[in-house]
């Protein structure tokens, strides 16, 4: 069954629906965050989630990743419930949240060695190349507490370059980046969409990506 989720993907499958969300309802502390939420995420698309503060963007992202299970409704991964194919779903998923998942005492290389190897085998050359691409050359071995917030964010984003995951869920990845970093990330997102992967991203930036669609909350 799990073979339904391809590990490699091509443009010929670009019309296939990756995630199908139907009738999603979430309530937090007696407040309805969203209800009757429907959307599809096909392969090869960047879906930007927008909404005012407190409209539940982070909650939505966490629900999609399976970090939050207090919702009602259905979320299907290639037409099947996520629980039925958890291993395939989680190996195709890459999530970067508000807390970027970078340990401050470790260096970027050490961080990536661990967080990448939770999903796939990775070599030090790959890590070095990725860090160079996100502009952390020369900082590979310095502990992360010596880096700025933006640099830590970049270290975390280096995972996008290494990762073969077909679905990226990124919660506010642009916040601490400078304008160069924003352009870099846009390019990375575009490349993901063009190779048939897809991205869900929350941000208030207006992104210049061709494959972009918008989803508004609240």
């Amino acid at each position, binding site marked *: 069954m799990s073979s339904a989720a391809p*590990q*490699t993907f091509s443009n010929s499958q670009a019309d296939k629906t990756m995630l199908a969300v139907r009738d999603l309802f979430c309530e937090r502390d007696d407040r309805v965050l969203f209800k009757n939420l429907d959307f599809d995420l096909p392969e090869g698309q960047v879906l930007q989630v927008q909404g005012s503060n407190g409209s539940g963007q982070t909650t939505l992202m966490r629900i999609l*990743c*399976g*970090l*939050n*299970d*207090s919702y009602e409704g259905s979320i299907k991964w290639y037409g099947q419930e996520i629980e039925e194919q*958890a*291993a*395939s*779903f*989680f*190996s195709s*998923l890459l*999530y970067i*949240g*508000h*807390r*970027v*998942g*970078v*340990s*401050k*005492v*470790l260096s970027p290389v*050490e961080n990536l*060695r*661990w*967080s990448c*190897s*939770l*999903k*796939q*085998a990775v*070599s030090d050359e*790959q890590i070095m190349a990725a860090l160079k691409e996100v502009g952390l050359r020369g900082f590979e071995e310095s*502990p992360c507490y010596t880096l700025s917030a933006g640099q830590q964010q970049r270290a975390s984003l280096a995972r996008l370059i290494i990762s*073969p995951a077909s679905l990226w869920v990124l919660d506010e990845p642009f916040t601490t980046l400078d304008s160069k970093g924003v352009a870099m990330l846009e390019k990375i997102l575009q490349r993901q969409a063009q190779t048939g992967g897809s991205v869900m991203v929350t941000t208030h930036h207006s992104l210049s990506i061709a494959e972009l669609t918008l989803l508004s909350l609240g």
Partner: protein
Amino acid sequence: MTEKQTTTSAAFLATLKRDLLIAFKKKNDIVNPFMFFIIVVSLFPIGISPESDRLTEIAAGVIWISVLLASMLSMDSLYRSDFEDGSLEQLLLSPHPLFFLVLAKNISHWLVSGLPVVLVSPLLAYMLALPSEAYGTLVLSLLLGTPIMSLIGSIAVALTVGLGSRGLILAVITLPMSVPILIFGTLAVQSTLNSQSPLGYLSLMLVMLSVSVSLAPLASGAALKISVN
């Protein structure tokens, strides 16, 4: 690009290595519980009596209770920084069974906080005038008992990882749960002192250890999912 998924054992080893690396970089987390243990033990003779006869009687209990407190205090660092910097979310979203990843974290934590305490215990036993024939049993019982405490403590820490201040609530939850280990640990030492075989107690602790190794990481994993929710 090689897009091969890692095996669970590789993820297990990577987690173990990473946690050990963090522990060696943040030396405080290793040294403080250890120092705490030594200081608490050395307070007892001052508070109770310097006479070696009376110390012999309480030595096993004092060491066991101090180990318990030290291990409880050290637990706090198990998931805290991972929770704060978001690494915990990455751990939970791994395609590998959470059981093994949590177990790896528990093992590395025990290696840096439990094992040193066990190794130094004969020295403290000597200072508390415990007869030397009981050293072996003491070390063995601690060797079996401290991992159980780490595993049980891990559940409680996982449940409270989202709380701001949790030092005391952790104690309230974990200390009552460690009663059985305390009982068997001290009984094992006591029976050696009465020149009986401690094997019965030690094998019981071994049973408890294997049960906790197979169940506690499951509970810890579930607790982490609840806390991160």
